[in-house]
């Protein structure tokens, strides 16, 4: 069986303007849309995500209302899997059950209740949503602390030790443990659905960690690109490095287009997809450039235009077949997986298709353009030199 007949000679470079322009336009469009449309998941934006499953039919709208009623109006509720699974993903952007206004209210109440102990301050522990720090001038007995908390209406945890004594070196300091956000959501759902609801997964990422992960993710993708381009520089010709790099950026941006179009969550797994696409894409282009190197050695005197065209044609069958087998391998996940692994597979397939396309239509033309530009500069320099010599 053959997909590409032997001896195929398609003039890919001749149509380079059309393909390169179309690619550039698409890449630019996606780049513009990334900040507007990419939906950062809790991994990068911070926040809480809860996956629940119901043992009876529940409508998204009803669930959304329930979550809003529990005090999370801004939460997003998505159905996952097929409709009869009754599984949902609830995402709350905030980290704590308390808003700033709540905190202000509690602060006033504590100042009033604990005035005889010299109230100093009440503040959020910035890295986590379920701890409140209290400072006073004089030590406060535990019973008094609990009384004040009740009077203020603080949603303390139901577990033991809702207040911790952190007094050190004679400086009174206490910490209240308030109800965790996921606890509050599941409590509200249990009140409504009883035994029919099951909390299957909870993810919480603090805002600081989110920022850290995001920066490291960007760094990782850039680092991989730089490393690979350096390898191409070292193993091949300087002229091939720009083609590889442009192809890489093209493939990574097109892959990101998956999240732009679908609005699905961009998370840690997405970074893994991008890095794999980087690896795959270069893999593909290296094979083409390896053939360019070989053709050039075989047929001395052939123009670069023809050399690249020959190499792309000779490797065309392999480029397509490898892309195909990799896509085929992932098809099972498109059918059977859901949630983040579905996104993983779908985006990966898009990335592989982009990589296959750019190996044929983008990398070669760029190498040619770079080569012509270098030659033009070279001739100009020579002309310039000869002119100066004449003068």
């Amino acid at each position, binding site marked *: *069986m053959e997909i590409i007949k*032997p001896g195929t000679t398609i003039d890919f470079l001749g149509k380079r303007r059309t393909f390169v322009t179309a690619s550039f336009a698409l890449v630019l469009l996606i780049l513009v849309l990334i900040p507007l449309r990419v939906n950062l998941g809790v991994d990068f934006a911070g926040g809480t995500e809860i*996956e629940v499953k119901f043992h009876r039919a529940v409508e998204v709208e009803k669930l959304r209302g329930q979550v809003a009623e529990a005090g999370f109006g801004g939460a997003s509720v998505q159905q996952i899997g097929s409709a009869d699974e009754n599984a949902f993903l609830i995402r709350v952007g905030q980290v704590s059950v308390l808003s700033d206004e709540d905190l202000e209210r509690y602060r006033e109440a504590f100042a009033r209740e604990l005035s005889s102990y010299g109230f100093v301050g009440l503040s959020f*522990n910035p*890295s*986590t949503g*379920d*701890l409140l720090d209290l400072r006073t001038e004089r030590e406060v007995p535990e019973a008094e602390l609990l009384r004040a908390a009740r009077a203020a209406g603080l949603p303390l945890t139901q*577990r033991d030790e809702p207040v*911790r004594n952190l*007094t050190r*070196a*004679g*400086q009174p300091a206490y910490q209240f443990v308030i109800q965790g956000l*996921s606890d509050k959501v599941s409590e509200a759902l249990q009140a409504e659905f009883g035994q029919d609801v*099951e909390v*299957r*997964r*909870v*993810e*919480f*990422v*603090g805002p*600081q*960690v989110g920022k850290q992960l995001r920066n490291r993710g960007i*760094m*990782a993708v850039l680092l991989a690109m730089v490393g*690979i381009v350096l*390898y191409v520089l070292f*193993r091949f010709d300087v002229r091939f490095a720009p083609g590889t790099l442009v192809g890489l950026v093209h493939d990574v941006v097109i892959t990101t287009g998956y999240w732009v179009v679908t609005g699905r969550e961009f998370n*840690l*797994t997405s*970074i*893994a997809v991008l*890095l*794999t696409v*980087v*690896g*795959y894409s*270069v*893999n593909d282009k*290296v*094979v083409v450039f*390896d053939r360019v190197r*070989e053709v050039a050695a075989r047929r001395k005197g052939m123009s670069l235009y023809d050399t690249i065209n020959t190499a792309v044609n*000779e*490797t065309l069958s*392999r480029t397509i*077949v*490898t892309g195909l*087998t*990799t896509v085929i*391998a992932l*098809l*099972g*996940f498109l*059918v*059977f997986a*859901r949630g983040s*692994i579905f996104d993983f597979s779908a985006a990966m397939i898009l990335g592989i298709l982009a990589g296959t396309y750019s190996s044929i239509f983008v990398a070669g033309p760029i190498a040619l353009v770079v080569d012509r530009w270098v030659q033009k500069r070279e001739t100009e320099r020579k002309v310039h030199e000869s002119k100066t010599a004449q003068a």
Partner: protein
Amino acid sequence: MEGRFFGRIGLVVAVVLVAIYFLVPTFVYFSLPPDQRNDKEAFEAALPSWAPKKRMTLGLDLQGGVHLVMGVDVDKAVRDRIERRADEMRAWADREGLAYASIEVDPSRDSVRTSFASEQDAAAFRTAAESYWGDMRRLAGDRWVFDPVFLEQFRESAVDQALRTIRDRVDRWGVTEPTIAKRGSDGILVQLPGFTDPERAKELLGKTAQLEFRLTAEDEANEALSRITDLPEGVTRGHDGYQAYLQSADRKLLEKVLEGKAPEGTRFFIGRVEQRDAIGVAGPAVYRSYLLRSKVELTGDKLTDARVAVEQGGLGAGRPYVAITFDKEGARIFSELTGANVGRRLAIVLDDTVNSAPVINSKIPDGNAQITLGTANYNQALEEANDLVLVLRSGALPAPVSIFEERTVGASLGPELVRSGSTAAIIGLVLVIAFMIAYYRRQGVVASAALLLNGLLILAALSSVGATLTLPGIAGFVLTLGMAVDANVLISERIREELRAGRTGKAAIREGYRRAFTAIFDSNVTTLIAAFVLLQYGTGPVRGFAVTLSIGIIASFFTAVYVTRVINEFLLARGAQTVSV
């Protein structure tokens, strides 16, 4: 030729056998019913004695459990320490009769400012303080800051303290195969497989460590233990020269035996016995009982510092010990306590676990005590001293911890993901093999055999290092197989080209392999670069994916290039005249 040829086949067969050997524990593990898998004894009983011990484990996303990253508030610990140092300086100036105008923590909270009534006192304080507090430096205007080197050590030790506290607590719950490790400069990663109550975990791990000093109850212990006549298997008796105790490797069992057996006014506690062999390597954990008085004599918040020091002169010169300092009130209580109980033992209890029970040698009036260690071996004594300092500081100078990251997977989700993940993987694999055979005919069959071997090698490698299998790991496995086929695609395409160029079957195969090699090599190296970056960056499931990808690429050099070539040569030697691609 013949001999070398059989040698090659022998190598391939040997690799397959070794791979199967390493897969045995993983196979045994997954053939156990799910509820018995994490039972160490059941697993070891089912495992043949000749098999390796390491096996693949299911990641938290596939078996359910809690993943937490706790952040240690190191800055707060540093500020607390500065405040305490100011207290110590005031107390010391008082004692030395130096009249200070003020010794206060600077508003920036990173230094202590001192000012004295007379320049004479100020100078006296400076000279004395510089030699007394070697970990501080004096800046202009009598501002005292911690030396950066000490500060760095202190920050590190604040994280170590928190790590130790968390490890002890997890140890006590009996969670199977927990992961507790430092992450970054101030984070602690805690993974509890099978533990599905995150709120409970967060609360227990976030609690401040409680340090207590309690007197031992020797006579009561001897009497109470003599009354326990029937010991279950695994619990043995011992005597430490002061009191009798029970000992067992199973903490829960020990607690059960002792339940309700403590005489009035006393309570049984558990301590960990460090068992070391002749060269000082720590053995498996063993627990022993201590009978202590119910009354808490002193708590950790009265302690201002604990550090390792080395004896300067005398008989024990050069021996490490632990120096502890109490605050004013603590010093008073400690003086009375030690005065009334010379010759008895005072147990150091952190979070209800006894660390040690040193003997009170004499009355300690000034709040500066020394704890000498029983071990004669210098390195061991130093290790014990460091550990004791961590325990004391955990109770005295706790660095608050908070939750940076939490991921919990319920018990029911995991099996469902394993099912759908493996179904998807098998479908992907079957489709790839079907395509390869349809497209490349006999070369497709050869490539598929290599592909299956590649899969086997990946699984064996993961199993032999005890890797964790995650859902992205499964997807990565399949993706890797899809990409590993690339080498065979390159070779097969090359063989087709050579055949078209008019070469015979044998020559076409030889040239196909030779010419495809540079492309295979270069393309695999670039993918490896991406995989290694991912390995550096990734955590948890993503890391599992990167590991699979790297192993798969390396394995494909062997399977797709070497093994298929051996098979092809074998087929040609068997008299196959044509090459079918």
